[in-house]
Each structure stands twice: as structure tokens, then as C-alpha cells.
């Protein structure tokens, strides 16, 4: 039972590490942004997991329901998702700009291009 209780957290950790690995090990900038997204989602899942109360339902008040899950993390994550997509858009815009300037979106090629100049 103890084991099952923590399984969710472990999967969150695995996801987070997957995202982390993509960010540090890949050179492609778009791929890095995807990695960041995965990392982000894992954090979201972590918050939502903490908010769940066993036997509770969604925090929308209704007749005859006593236990609700915790609404506070939901609020935080709700705004975080939209902000996340806004920042992703900003990052992608930077990628497009970099592609304009250097003609490539591979990290090491950009570095090589920089050293040439």
C-alpha cells in the first residue's frame, strides 16, 4: 500500500528527468523547448497529485457532497499552464529569430558560427 501511495510521485520524477535529459543532452533548440514542456507538465502533475483527496470530487460545490479536492493547487496550475504556453511562444519566437540570424537551430553549430566571426 505504501508503495502504491508513492507511485505517482515516482512517475512524476521519471517524467521530469526525461524532460531534463532532453534539455541538456540535445542540441536542437526546438527539441529543448519540447523538453522544457515535458518538465513543466511533470511539475503540474505533481501539484495536482498533491491536491487529490481520496474519496473527494472536483471542487465545485454541490448538494450532498462533503469531500472536495484541494482547489488551491488547481488555481496555481491553471494559470501556470496558460503562462507556460505564452513563454513557450516567446521561446519559439527566439528560435525563429536565431534561425534567421544563423541559419541553423542546432546549438553547437551556432557556437561554431559564433567563433568564426
Amino acid at each position, binding site marked *: 500500500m505504501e508503495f502504491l501511495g508513492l507511485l505517482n510521485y515516482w512517475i512524476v520524477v521519471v517524467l521530469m528527468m526525461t524532460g531534463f535529459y532532453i534539455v541538456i543532452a540535445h542540441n536542437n533548440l526546438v527539441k529543448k523547448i519540447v523538453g522544457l514542456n515535458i518538465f513543466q507538465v511533470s511539475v503540474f502533475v505533481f501539484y495536482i497529485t498533491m491536491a487529490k483527496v481520496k474519496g473527494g*470530487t*472536483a471542487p*465545485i460545490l*454541490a448538494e450532498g457532497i462533503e469531500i472536495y479536492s484541494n482547489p488551491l493547487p488547481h488555481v496555481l496550475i491553471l494559470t501556470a499552464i496558460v503562462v507556460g504556453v505564452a513563454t513557450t511562444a516567446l521561446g519559439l519566437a527566439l528560435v525563429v529569430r536565431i534561425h534567421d540570424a544563423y541559419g541553423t537551430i542546432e546549438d553547437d553549430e551556432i557556437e561554431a558560427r559564433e567563433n568564426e566571426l
Partner: protein
Amino acid sequence: MMFAVTAAAVLVTMVLTLYRSIKGPTVYDRILGINAFGTLTVVLISVYGFLSGRPDFLDLALVYALINFINTIAVSKYVEFSHMGRPTGGDELGDM
């Protein structure tokens, strides 16, 4: 408990489509898989609403039906007109 059986069937089908969209040799297979997966998500959310006894949340499924459509159209458009539709090596996943 009828709902539970249906939900289980949806989950099984999800696994099948997921297999297709991860493995799928061409880009089109992936799109197809993801489209089907989206529809399954719609069904799963509706069924889960009934399963948990609060079927008020069908707005969510409705949003999915819409977004899924937009997504597929966008992907098909970009694939169709940017010649990125080459088959991708499905075997890159083989060494996992």
C-alpha cells in the same frame, strides 16, 4: 459497472492507437493515431464523468472534440504543404 467495462475497452483501444502513433512508420500514421486518440479521450472523459457520478463536466469533452479537429487540420496542412511527409524511421525506437 457497465461504465467500468466501457472505460476498460476505451483504455485498451488507447493502448492500440498509442502503439500506432509511436511506432507508425509514416507521419500520416502518427496523425491518424493521434486523431483517434483524441476521440478516445473524448469518450473516456464522458464515461468517467458517469463513472464518478458527476456528469456535469461534459464541457471538457466538447472542448476536446473541437481542439482535436483543429489540431488534425493544422498538422495535415503543415505536412501537406511543406513536404515533410517523408516516412520517418520507425526503428529509431527499436533500441529502447
